[in-house]
């Protein structure tokens, strides 16, 4: 290649031109980038329409978890205390999100569609203990809602992904 001393000047044109373009960075806390439907964020537990929990405490999610960050302690439903639709329910359901690797295996493993990974990605806390999500936190609606890019892209077999996540 012959030496091209003026080739060095091309770079100046490249950098100069960018001044007139709109920056690509986004103003994060004000603008939250919409996530795609398949995005795997913070977990959620679900209820049936009648208010009963979908989770039956089978621990399959805990068995599937490569990071061992799910703990389920099941108990029997009784006539006076009916929590889930099945025979048993999860008395304790906890996820340590600081250990979670968001692989989504729990969601795949759950035969009752009781646990899904939602859209929340703002998961930082000040204390490690705050990263341990209990059942109540997982059942509640997420506080910080993240917009979804395009609802038409939903195609996952878990039905209420489309409407609710």
């Amino acid at each position, binding site marked *: 290649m012959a*030496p*091209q*001393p003026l*080739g*060095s000047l*091309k*770079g100046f*044109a*490249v*950098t100069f031109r*960018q001044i007139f373009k709109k920056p*690509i960075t986004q103003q994060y806390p004000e603008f939250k980038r919409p*996530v*795609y*439907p*398949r*995005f*795997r964020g913070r977990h959620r537990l679900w209820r049936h329409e009648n208010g009963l929990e979908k989770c039956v405490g089978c621990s*399959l999610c805990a*068995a*599937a978890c*490569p990071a061992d960050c799910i703990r389920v302690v099941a108990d029997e439903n009784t006539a006076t205390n009916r929590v889930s639709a099945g025979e048993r329910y999860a008395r304790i359901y906890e996820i340590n999100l600081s250990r979670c*690797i*968001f*692989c*989504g*295996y729990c969601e*795949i*493993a759950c*035969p009752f569609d009781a646990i899904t*990974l939602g859209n929340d990605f703002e998961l930082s806390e000040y204390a490690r203990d705050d990263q341990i999500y209990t059942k109540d936190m997982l059942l509640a609606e997420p506080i910080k809602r993240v917009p979804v890019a*395009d609802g*038409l*892209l939903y*195609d*996952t*077999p*878990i039905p209420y992904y489309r409407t609710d996540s």
Partner: protein
Amino acid sequence: MAIAPERPEIYAGSRIPRIPTVLELPAALRDSDDVLQVNFGPNHPSTHGVLRLVVDLHGETVVGLNAKVGYVHTGFEKNMEAKTWWKAITYAPRIDYLAYQANELVFVQAIEKLLGLPLPEKATWMRMLLCELNRIHSHLVWLGTAALELGAISMFWYCFRERDQILDLSELVTGYRMHTRYFQAGGLAEDVPPGFYPECRRFVETMPGAVDQYEDLVDRNQIWLKRTKGLGLLSADDAIALGQTGPVLRGSGVDWDLRRDDPYLAYDRVDFAVPVYENGDVYDRYRVRMDEMRESTRIVEQCLRRLERLDGEPWIADDRKVVLPPREELHTSMESLIHHFKIVTEGYRVPEGEVYVAVESPRGELGCYVVSDGGPRPWRVKFRGASFVALEATATCMVDAYIADLIAIVGSLDTVMGEVDR
């Protein structure tokens, strides 16, 4: 022709030192007061990752070098032995966190080779597409950071502009921007989502222009040429003796690419060129990667064309002992539910045997040696990281280098410490 017919003579004789990975202080300087020993790393702005180079400096010249690694050793291989095959798939991409897709591919292919599992057409092409996107991603991160180390700070942002598009595509398909676990034994975890092809096509159209822009910025810049040409020399013979692969090997004039010479997936059915440069210096390694970005874009384009014709085809093999049953069957078929429980809790079993599978990752040959005892867990997993081997060449490349070259040379070898230390 696998090897370039005329191997270039970059320098006479072998420059590999007595201990191949250590540059020892010359005897004349051993007792001298003029030698300054400096630690480059483990915390240093130029080592992205935690590499520690113990460098002996004589003025600005590097006269001794010893690379210390292991700061991010996380015991992936040991951990994978304790997980089922299915779960271990999530570990593989985290080893080389920039070429996650290639890592996932190599591990999944090792499982499939032991199982003798056929791969559906759609999965083959989709894997190829994602791996090539991943190669572009990895090269972009390399280019951005390597240029940053040489002081060309703007390149970083331009590269990350395109990188973000790739991550977006990855999120669209797999649900996660990195470490996707999208490749499963037998195929893909999910079907290709609607809307992916047009998005990906848009990226394919913009990428060549972006590469042009990177080249405009540095390719003919005199300072860039001065900082990269004729530095970090590695002759073809030395490169082979040191086990170099990928862009480092191709930058030394050896025409070798596993995608073409030992084709896996469907690489024998796409058209692409293997860039080879002959001077074995930092500049040539940079050129190889730039050209590879263009070629990868071409492969992605060809994959897209194929995939668009495969709409509605299966994306994973139909083998109920290995592959999770379709989700809708869980509520209707008892047998499916039993298989589901079995695979999730106990994991599928893989026949006894040992295999070594290699793919061309962005950094070179990424190998996975797997031993199975027939049980649900791997007996032994060993990853052959291309970065690990590339780092072995530092001492040879560093003969007659200055401190500033040290940065350029280590950068040009493109090491990812996660892969080195595993």
